[in-house]
């Protein structure tokens, strides 16, 4: 027992002993749940470690996750702190990746930029998935007129080049964290909807779906309980891939000046602001570009490796 909990014990007034142990059945259920979870995690680890591609990808991704989580501990300067006496510095002992045109520490901006991209990326993909599933699931399940209508609308949306679509949305609503997430979600939803629809059209013909109908289950229950969980394999891989794209698009939006409003540390913005001074100082652009590349490639390699390895012995 550590001292802290020991002190807590003293500090807390004595309470009558309560039956803390759950009922045996619940305990069994909980234990089984964790055992099942642990087994799944072990299987996943086995799959990942069996694929060198996935391992390399995971290391690259984990590096940036680590940087994002521990950003305050591994940087000495604030990402917003400007130093007019030291602008466009090359790497030195004080600034390991140098400083940018406003004298901000490039490494700090990179580290905090990782935070931005690693929160906004997954968030936007998550929203995109919610949208895509909400559209694709009924489309594939009912078919017919519902399917035609939804798909034609999505076709129209997909006809726009992605970047153009983002530009239209951002110009209309203005650049902000929230709007970037929404723009990327709208841009990604049609593709996800199509994937979900295709999977649903296959799964709805399975006999367990018929069995659920013979149970009198509602269409909504069947879609959510019977069909959606069985789409998860391809969806998880797609999710990983899309986080990579989202990181890339956030970068692109940043570069076009439509991304996150300055002075937010943002990799795309760093490239955009730095490229005017590239002749004088290549470091902000180079390091931000490399950061985007390593994260996107890492996510892609990880997703690819997992997909290949999990399908290998089927």
């Amino acid at each position, binding site marked *: 027992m550590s001292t802290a909990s020991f002190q807590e014990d003293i500090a807390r007034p004595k309470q009558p002993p309560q039956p803390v142990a759950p009922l045996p059945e619940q305990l069994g259920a909980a234990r089984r749940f964790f055992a099942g979870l642990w087994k799944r995690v072990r299987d996943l680890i086995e799959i990942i470690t069996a694929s060198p591609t996935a391992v390399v990808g995971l290391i690259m991704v984990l590096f940036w996750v680590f940087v994002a989580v521990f950003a305050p501990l591994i940087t000495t300067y604030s990402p917003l702190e400007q130093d007019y006496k030291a602008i466009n510095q090359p790497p030195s002992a004080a600034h390991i990746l140098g400083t940018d045109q406003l004298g901000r520490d490039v490494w700090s901006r990179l580290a905090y930029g990782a935070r931005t991209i690693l929160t906004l990326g997954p968030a936007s993909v998550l929203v995109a998935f919610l949208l895509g599933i909400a559209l694709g699931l009924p489309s594939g399940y009912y078919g017919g007129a519902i399917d035609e209508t939804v798909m034609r609308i999505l076709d129209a949306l997909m006809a726009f080049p992605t970047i153009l679509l983002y530009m239209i949305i951002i110009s209309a609503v203005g650049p902000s964290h929230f709007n970037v997430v929404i723009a990327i979600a709208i841009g990604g939803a049609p593709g996800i909807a199509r994937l979900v629809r295709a999977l649903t059209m296959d799964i709805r013909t399975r006999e*367990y779906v*018929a*069995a*659920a109908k*013979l149970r*009198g289950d509602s269409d909504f229950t069947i879609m959510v309980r*019977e069909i959606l969980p069985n789409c*998860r394999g391809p969806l998880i891989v797609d999710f990983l891939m899309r986080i990579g794209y989202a990181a890339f698009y956030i970068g692109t939006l940043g570069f076009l000046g439509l991304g996150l409003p300055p002075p937010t540390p943002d990799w795309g913005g760093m490239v955009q602001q730095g490229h005017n001074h590239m002749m004088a100082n290549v470091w902000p652009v180079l390091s931000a570009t490399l950061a985007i590349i390593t994260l996107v490639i890492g996510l892609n390699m990880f997703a690819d490796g997992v997909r290949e390895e999990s399908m290998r*012995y089927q």
Partner: protein
Amino acid sequence: MEQTPVLKVDGLAVAYKTRKRDIHAVRDVSFEIYSGENLGLVGESGCGKSTVAYSIVNFLGPNGRIVRGNILFKGEPLHNRSEKELRRLRGADISMVYQEPMSALNPSMRIQDQLAESLITHRGMPRSEAYGKSLQALKDVYMPDAEAVMLRYPHQLSGGQQQRVVIAMALLNNPSLLIMDEPTTALDVTVEAAVLDLIAELKERYQTATLYISHNLGVVARVSDKVGVMYAGEIVELASTRSIYQSPLHPYTMGLMRCLPDVDAPKGTRQLLPIEGRVPSPANLPSGCIFAPRCPHVIAECSAQRPKLIELTTGHHVRCIRAGEWIGKDMVWLDQGVSTEPCPDRDEASPEKTLVVQNARVYYPVPFKTVAGLFGLEKRQYVRAADDISLQVKRGRTLGIVGESGCGKSTLAKAIVGLEPLYDGKIEFLNMDISSPLNKRKLNVIRELQMVFQDPNGTLNPSYCVGDQIAASLRRFHTVPPDQVQGEVEQLLRSVKLDESYYYRLPRQLSGGEKQRVGIARAIASNPAMVICDEPVSALDVSVQAAVLNLLLEIQKTHNTTMILISHDLSSVRFFSDDVAVMYLGRVVEIGPCEAIYMPPNHPYTAALLAAVPRPDPDLEPSRVRLTGRVPSAVNPPSGCRFHTRCPFYMGDICKEQEPPERDFGGGHKIYCHLSQEELEQIKP
């Protein structure tokens, strides 16, 4: 006569590499095939039959390899050859026919180009000669209208025709060795019978050595001279076909034979004896005899060491230490200990009708192909999957529905449970009108009418554990109070012979037979008055089929459940049903008590179906009543009697123009045919 075998497999062992370890799928397999000989390999799925075939042509895939042993083709080793040499050999001297004819044919090439291709590439034959030879090959396999077929694409042919094309292709180069991997499994019985005739005849004519792989003992008895019985990667018995069928010496072979339902035995006269347990995974084999854990005759010595394959009598090899005790005892010995308790007298069952189907029609609209159609300017076309069907099922009895694939039997079942809407007609269930589709039915009607599905891999949701899927039904129908659900699920699992530990298993951890049992448990969870079984055992191994059929029978006995059994297998229908309806192209052609259906008089179609059933007795002279042609399209079914295009008793215009009249033979036995009662009595299957 001393002669080199065309194929000699000696001590073959094959392993597959997986993420965790090597799986030794085949061990110590040896056999020889001489010219003009057909060796059948039988066994349950997962016994390594196909692996043996693939190792001969070196198609083991990236993770398979031959660990030990020799494969000699005409005395020369086949393995360790270069890819180039193998390709030449495979094209010219060894041919293979696979289970799925459709996947063996290139869908974008005409039949003539596919056939001629191998002649042109392997033999360098001029094109015109190659086409001529291809046409001859099609004629050799009795392809009707061969000239026209040459110009067609694979999708324009029926399954039987496709398989004929594949066989013709395999025979084009006069191969010395022909490997057939379940060539008739995907085909209907009537087509299968014709293809088996063809295989038997071609062997005589070309003296090709054939390795024939099948899980069906009846089929192997029909075509093979020698049979090797495989179990868990080893050959456990190898002998001439007659000797295997008359005096099987390995308990596994005996087990395989007595779990087969017999098309010639009526309901209640025979009990099927399933082989308990399942094929052990090659990863953890028992230390002694591999069959010992499932063997009913196991003794202590069995687990001491792995028995060797020894020649017990001339040409009869067995891998069993007790086999010697059984020489000379005939098959009667096998039935020892079998309960011959007859089924309860079915006539006593109350005559109350649980289900009455009146003039039911299920039509599927054909999608419009033209713009005019899209705007309603064209007459809508329909696939008449079930057309004017009337039948009834009495309480506590089983109605069997048989017919070839595409005859509408599954569609009818789906319409009854409400998964497909009725186009016209009426269905009455427990004196209630249930002609409406499922979403309009009341929950208490739905719970009384449940279904067991065909595909063991599709019947359970892979995302949930077994118990939860059964519990879902219980919760939905409030069969038991919520706090008793768990106990009730365990009770249901026990009633389908699975213990409670299965509650938390995921479907992928179950074998096919176990999944099917869970499907049955789910269907009976709401304690329904009627269960419809749509081909419940067709996808299962014979040994498992028996257990599932026994289980269904037991459930019927205990709960007095009314059942419909849909199957293409006439043997299991006879084993299980009280009444039978025979369907052809959306119509019922014959209906009546089970015994009447399996005896003359018969509808010509029923007679052909009965004749086509492969019987596991090599001495039985195969019947020659065969159907020709393919099942016509259900969009434009033939006029008059729908069967007239294929009927061997076709009488001309009357069949073509008039609906067949009902011929009543009493006792509910009705045949719909233009032949007179006397003529119908003459038809022998």
